């Protein structure tokens, strides 16, 4: 699958793809790779928004293919439950394309998108508008009244940021090797380290 198709899929996840692009995706033959990409994007989105994916386990591709081929499916697909919970007032063609795409690719993932949980946005205070999100101190029950000075990555100069990143990386190494946490430890610092180096 080429980069352009990946971009279209990404746009479809955000409900921002135009009709021609959606048609182009639907005409593609490499369904398996698109399935993987589609699922990946939706899993990422689900993780980001802390949402349930009740249809993620349902593979309806066979029924949809039968319908496309003109045969009557064994059971009627219940689409209203899918459509009524979409977060945006999507354009009719886009909505249809999205549902068709989701069903045709065999994934229900993303069918019940909802916005982040109330209060979730409060979790992150913008640090530098980008990759380094500094959590508010008061999340852990120890609020600002505890008198701790909050150090934002954005406030550090490059040398200080590099030094702090080095500590984070070394801790990740300790955590992964000594603490038995495997890749999780390195995942915590990888983006910080790379962005700052």
């Amino acid at each position, binding site marked *: 699958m080429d980069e352009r198709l990946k971009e279209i899929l990404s746009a479809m996840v955000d409900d921002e793809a135009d009709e021609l692009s959606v048609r182009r995706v639907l005409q593609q033959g490499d369904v398996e790779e698109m399935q*993987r990409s589609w699922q*990946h994007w939706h*899993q*990422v989105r689900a*993780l*980001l928004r*802390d949402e349930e994916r009740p249809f*993620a386990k349902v593979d309806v591709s066979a029924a949809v293919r039968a319908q496309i081929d003109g045969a009557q499916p064994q059971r009627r697909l219940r689409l209203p439950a899918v459509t009524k919970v979409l977060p945006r007032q999507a354009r009719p063609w886009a909505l249809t394309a999205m549902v068709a795409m989701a069903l045709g690719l065999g994934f229900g993932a993303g069918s019940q998108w909802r916005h982040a949980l109330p*209060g*979730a946005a409060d*979790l*992150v205070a913008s640090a530098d508008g980008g*990759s*380094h*999100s*500094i*959590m508010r*101190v008061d*999340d*852990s*029950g*120890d609020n600002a009244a*505890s008198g*701790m000075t*909050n*150090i934002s*990555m954005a*406030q550090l100069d490059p*040398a*200080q940021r*590099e*030094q*702090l990143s*080095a*500590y*984070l*990386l*070394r*801790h990740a*190494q*300790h*955590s*992964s*090797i*000594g*603490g*038995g*946490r*495997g*890749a*999780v*430890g*390195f995942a*915590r610092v*990888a*983006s910080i*380290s*790379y*962005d700052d*180096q």
Partner: protein
Amino acid sequence: MSERSGIMGCAERAVPLCCRSRSGEWLLCLLLFWSSLAAAEQPSKTAEQWLQQLAPALNRTSYKGVFVYTRGNDVNSMRIYHRYRDGHVRERLVQLDGANGEIIRDDNRVVCIYPNKGQVQLDNVIPAGPFAEAFANQLTPVTRWYTPTLLREDRIAGYPAVGIELKAKDKDRYSYRLWLEKNTGLLVRSEVVGVRGHTLERFQFTDLTFTDNIPDSELEAKPGNRTIQREDIRQPDASPHRTEWSMGWKPAGFVAAAAPVSARNEAVAYSDGLASFSVFVEPLKGVDMPSGVSRIGATTAYLRKIRRNNTTFLITVVGEVPPLTARRVANGIELGH
């Protein structure tokens, strides 16, 4: 599963003998009935039993796949190759978003490959202290500090997974939700939950393949990255002098888990079996770091400066613990004279 196979194996081997008489047939039927009943009544694993699989599965399972790590609004996708062969772990992580960095691990040796600066080899780290042995022997009393609850089964990256909630019994540590793949016990999803119930970070496989067939080529960094000298990279102080320090307080259950091979005594990691934090005590040289707390997802970094004998030391506590815990640890560090 192995027990069930064993029973069936005995029955199969017994068939030719039993079939010589009608009473033998009845005996065979009775044996099969009892064995099926025994299998049906076998209780499912408890949360504690699943947790015992967690650490060995992370190292001793061979797999490759893609996982997503999120904290706040940040998302990072990484491809991982993890091979366990002849008692050795080799692992390669490739950043899929943004900069194209890699981390290569060969047992306790870790090399980070930065897109712009090349390779940096970190100090070798060895599991240390009683914790390491306890962890290897599955004796770590995780449930002493967390209350485990089995969650409903889920499906992660195409595999059935068992969910376990581990609620912290005190405010010195965070709570966790873990999902382990049912056959191998591999951690396929995890969430770190703050004291107030907010999810601070998530880790989840989106694509996963269990395979022993991971060639060396997939565990090596892709060619083209510039190799540079270690001195070019700013590292926390590498002074050869040993720094004497002691810890006045640490949260209950945390024991020494890892330390660098070097004898400088500048860093020690502690873990309670799930959470971990590292303590760095080093003379402050070159870069003047501020004092205070920085939080990135579930990771807290608390920095404190102490002046002793005309030298300023920087005490840094980094770990997946609440800021108050990190501060209390840092404030409890005492330097030797």
